[in-house]
């Protein structure tokens, strides 16, 4: 499988990362060589093998349904470039 620049730009757009033309070219080369390397796995026949979700053989750890009162507003909003009262403020994101 070979990627083209359109695919690189599409992935960048989905991840909200702005790329210059040069950066896109570099990434195209890097990603194609990664894909080439991974593609060696195609040599193995996996027709009757279920997809693997995780390589660990242990089971999913579970916790009790106990809520902790954390009153996080002040601490969590410290990371926000812009806030109003107890809200994060971001550029308008609706059509």
């Amino acid at each position, binding site marked *: 499988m070979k990627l083209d620049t359109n695919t690189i730009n599409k992935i960048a757009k989905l991840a909200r990362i702005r790329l210059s033309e040069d950066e896109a070219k570099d990434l195209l080369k890097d990603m194609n060589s990664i894909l080439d390397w991974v593609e060696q796995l195609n040599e193995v026949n996996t027709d009757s093998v279920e997809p693997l979700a*995780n390589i660990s053989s242990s089971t999913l750890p579970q916790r009790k349904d106990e809520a902790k009162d954390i009153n996080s507003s002040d601490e969590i909003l410290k990371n926000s470039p812009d806030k109003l009262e107890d809200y994060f403020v971001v550029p*308008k994101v609706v059509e």
Partner: protein
Amino acid sequence: MSNLIKGNKHEWETVIGLEIHAQVKSNSKLFSNSSTAFGSRPNSQVSLVDAAMPGMLPVINKYCIEQAVKTGIGLNAKINNYSIFDRKNYFYADLPQGYQISQYKYPIVGEGKVSIDFKDGSSKDIRIVRLHLEQDAGKSLHDQNPTKTYVDLNRSGVALMEIVSEPDIRSADEAGLYISKIRSILMYLDTCDGNMQEGSLRADVNISVRKPGDDYGIRCEIKNLNSIKFIKQAINYEVRRQIEILETGGVIEQNTLLFNTSTGKTKPMRSKEEAHDYRYFPDPDLLPLEINQKDIDKMVNSIPELPDERKRKYVVVYNLSNYDASVLTADKSVSDYFDSVIKSDQSLKNSAKIVVNWITSELFSLLKENNIDIDNSPINPKYLGKLVKLIKENIISGKIAKDVLIEMFNSKQDPEIIIKNKGLKQVTDTSEIENIVDEVLKENKKMVEQYLSGKDKLLGFFVGQSMKKSKGKANPKILNEILKSKLSNKN
């Protein structure tokens, strides 16, 4: 009952499938221990996991898993012993992780079905494709500022169950019945509080139309509807819109739509070129979820009585119609109230229909007028049972009972005490009624003559006058008999 809709040229069939998002009733979130309480200070329930701080790892809430399994059992569905959590990737301000943890190929619950009941007593099965667990996103407020969006992450990470139906629904009414049924099952199971106003239950509706017998048409999806009324309005509008396009030679564009509740119209949400590409893949932070059959069996045994079971009991044991039984059982609180009334007195078992009528007409309208829900009804179920017994035993008439009920509502008193204090006991003493009738006939001689010369309709007038004289307390049956015999004696 035909569901076909007449266009200008053809008849059309509506095809609808629903995705219902039901918030899991739990104390803490799906993958973190912050609270799920509604209406708290914005961003006060956001742990480092919910805020997606680097290095934070999700740990699943055992109770949310049980809630999903219980719901699956309530939907007569297959519980999967093995399921996987995936990342659904998209970028939005109220999704700090940049992805939603959801389930894609291997959901926790597989195929099931629920049945919906129609007014005419018939019913229909709606098939369920799947139920999966996922995280809710935060809440964005878009209308507070012309250029900014305000974000509250308290809801971010709360557990949701997404319940997906097959496209088996054929009208807005069926969609309404289906979502009511799901809501009622969830509330009986206590796995979701069913509060649509607070957004605990919302639905995405997929709609297409076709000529009967044709393949499915191209569908549109209306997102995020949070009331049964809006769901029906949105469907009715959208069906008309699609039929009009097709009949004028147009093609339906597959679109995601939003329903504007003030205009009653749908409009496209985002353009096609920005169509989402979610790039699902298994979340490397979470191992597959394995549930052993023993635990599932244990949960099957702990499932409470569900609406369909109660309905059957009402039909078989209390002789209620299918429709009355489904009205009662739709809301667990109403059904519980009815059960308490019936249980308050042995003899009421045979008067179940009268009890239903008093609950669904008189009591409901009093509660509605005063904006009180049945859980907080000022009328004790035991007292309503007493009232029905007093009617059955001819101690008061149905008409007076309505006044007594209002008094019971206002004073929370025992109906017997109200009747005694106000002297409302029905007069069944024949001589007393005879005296009243004699007076009425004497006072209305002209009318009596007209009646005797053939104006039969005047009987009602005499009944009314006599009833008035007795202050509504005369037993109507005895009164009628006496009036008729006195009038015929005059002939």
